[in-house]
């Protein structure tokens, strides 16, 4: 092989190997840091894993918001129309958190079946619903329709 071509080939192989390793590492890190979204019905069906960080979202059930007296802990329930999950959160809730509005919580399932949230996001204006929640609600509606037929 011509020496210049050979040099180029080595350079190309080097770059390819390096890029592969880099992409591999980045993808690995990505997989460690993604939070899967589960709907309340999936959680009711026991599909959600314990001990991994996941996200749960739905509408906050009216009348379900309770404050634990003397502390900053709040308990509330979210639903997608088919399933319900109880969420416990300690801290300050976002301004737009309200009953009958969409909320998305990040955290882990506890053994007693409640969801321990470390972060709660609420929608940010009245026209907006997080796409995951909209999607979950829609699926639950479809299921409800099927069940009725």
């Amino acid at each position, binding site marked *: 092989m011509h020496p210049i071509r050979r040099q180029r080939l080595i350079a190309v192989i080097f770059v390819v190997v390096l890029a592969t390793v880099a992409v591999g590492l980045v993808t690995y890190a990505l997989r460690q*840091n993604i939070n899967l979204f589960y709907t309340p019905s999936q959680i009711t069906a026991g599909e959600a894993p314990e001990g991994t960080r996941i996200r749960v979202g739905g509408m906050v059930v009216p009348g379900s918001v309770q404050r634990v007296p003397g502390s900053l802990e709040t308990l509330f329930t979210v639903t997608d129309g088919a399933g319900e999950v109880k969420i416990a959160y300690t801290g*300050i809730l976002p*301004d737009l958190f309200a009953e009958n509005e969409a909320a998305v919580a990040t955290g882990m399932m506890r053994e007693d079946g409640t969801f321990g949230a470390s972060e709660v996001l609420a929608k940010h204006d009245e*026209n907006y619903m997080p*796409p995951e929640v909209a999607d979950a609600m829609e699926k639950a509606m479809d299921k409800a329709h099927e069940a009725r037929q």
Partner: protein
Amino acid sequence: MNPEIGHFALILGFALALCQAVLPMVGSYTGNRPWMAVARPLALGQLLLALVSFVALTLAFLADDFSVLYVANNSNSLLPWYYKISAVWGAHEGSLLLWVLIQAGWIAAVAAWSRSLPLTLVARVLSVMSMVAVGFYLFLLFTSNPFERMLPFPAAEGADLNPLLQDFGLIVHPPLLYMGYVGLSVPFAFAIAALLAGRLDAAWARWTRLWTNAAWAFLTLGIALGSWWAYYELGWGGWWFWDPVENASFMPWLVATALVHSLAVTEKRGAFRSWTLLLAIFAFSLSLLGAFLVRSGVLTSVHAFATDPARGVFILAFLALVVGGSLLLFAIRAQSLPNQGGFEWLSREAFMLINNILLVIATAIILLGTLYPLVADVLGWGKISVGPPYFNLFFVPLMLLLAPLMAVGGILRWKRTEWSWLRPALVLPLLISVVAGLVFPWLYAGAFHAGTAITVAVFVWVVVVLVRDIWRKSAYSGGRVRGLRRLTGSYYGMQLAHLGVACAILGAGMVSIYTAEKDARVEEGGRVEDAGYHFEFADFSVVQGPNYVADQAEVRVWRGERLVATLYPQKRRYLASGQLMTEAGIGGGLFRDLYVSLGEPLGDGAWAVRVHVKPFVRWIWLGALLMAAGGGLAMADRRYRARRTALAGSTIDNAVVTGSH
């Protein structure tokens, strides 16, 4: 009547943009000078029409014309007049109109300040920029008309502007950000023109650099303002969330930063040519991608606008056209631009290359993390989000690597630098920065912390290397002051921007490591202790604002026996929408911010509150300000002020060299 005038002006502007996209381009190929020359007056006409359109919408807001759907949705008669003006760009349609206005502004600016460039180049640049403008006019007119009426039954009252947006930050953040986003279409258009001509010379690089600096400085300010706004307005004291939309603005910034450096090499050494063009294309493509992510509502984000699938599809198609078309052109024409000038590994070129590689890697990693949820959704892997740990894991080490190299790159010579010359310039700064890094954590927090040590060492390293370099370069037989005055604006701009990077890194590091945050339940007179400060909640009261009612706390912050600050955090309820808003009470300082936000009433007069002590947080924005100022200084360099005739600038197309005006 006004809204219709605005609408007509918009349509006329679209027609002019169409002419401007076609005529000068065709003229540049047929050698038809009048067709090329018409680009400048058309640019002015476009700007005037866009301005008329924008003013018409603003007047509709000021006059509370709720028969206009967009006004009814985003304003209210109780809104103070300055928020009525800023509400013009408070939602999708109006912000797009602002986008079009700014695009017209940049086109007019290029038309006005390009007298020294050959007419063919100017014609092509203006034509390409107008093609981009045509895309946005179409988008505005067909999917997002801000002048749509609600007739015959207009709303009696407006729905009010989102309370989060009723703030000074929002008045200035989007215009600055858009100046940056749209400004990147200038280097993009220059790159396309260079590819079309198959020529790229020092004059091209010099002028592209000027425009890139301008766009970059605006983008820097826009992002920093957004971060500052999020910090004090969202009420949780965060300044960067790795939110998809923040990433969408950050990626073009990173690539534009790489472009600024790569352009320097292209101007001074004639190297990195095709790479520079590629970066210019990527920078603008990423800013369009940002527009797509924000406008289509495909991602969950605090910035997402209410969604409409047609808009997403439109921008996606536009994006595909721009990226696909320009990359195709690049693939065909890039070989015709040979690179010049070899260099050794210890040279400014080599360090610029490392800078570019690191910045592009950082961009790629952020792009992957931002788009991964989209890809996963499309492929049915489930709904996922990528958390900040992923971004921090890669971004922080990359920047901590980049910053020390940045300092060295700033003092290196072009082509080749002797190690024996460089070594003495680095030994003392290295010593000082290592000692500072080791000592500072003890002095500040009484305990060693590796993260602090590295952050401080990097900061000190950059500052010392930089100051030493200025000191050395300003040595002059005619005296120090004259020596300092002899250094170019370009040089000072670079040093100032690098200092800004160091400040931002110090701020980000310190606030990430030493933030002290506490949620608590307090009653009137209650106290919360945090990081050596006592927050005394002296009084809760109710206050009345122009369009809201607020619960307000009076918080006295004590350090020992000394009253440091009195803060008034509020919880507002806006009357029109009933929406709640936390207005944090912030006691700012150069070395620490005291930050109090009210949560919610817990009954019995008790409140959930959150207090933070945030050391050095202001350095982040201070750093961004320095960077933008650096960009401005570089633009004020004397080589841009000198009147250049057609003689001095070597030209893109030899057919039309002289008498370009």
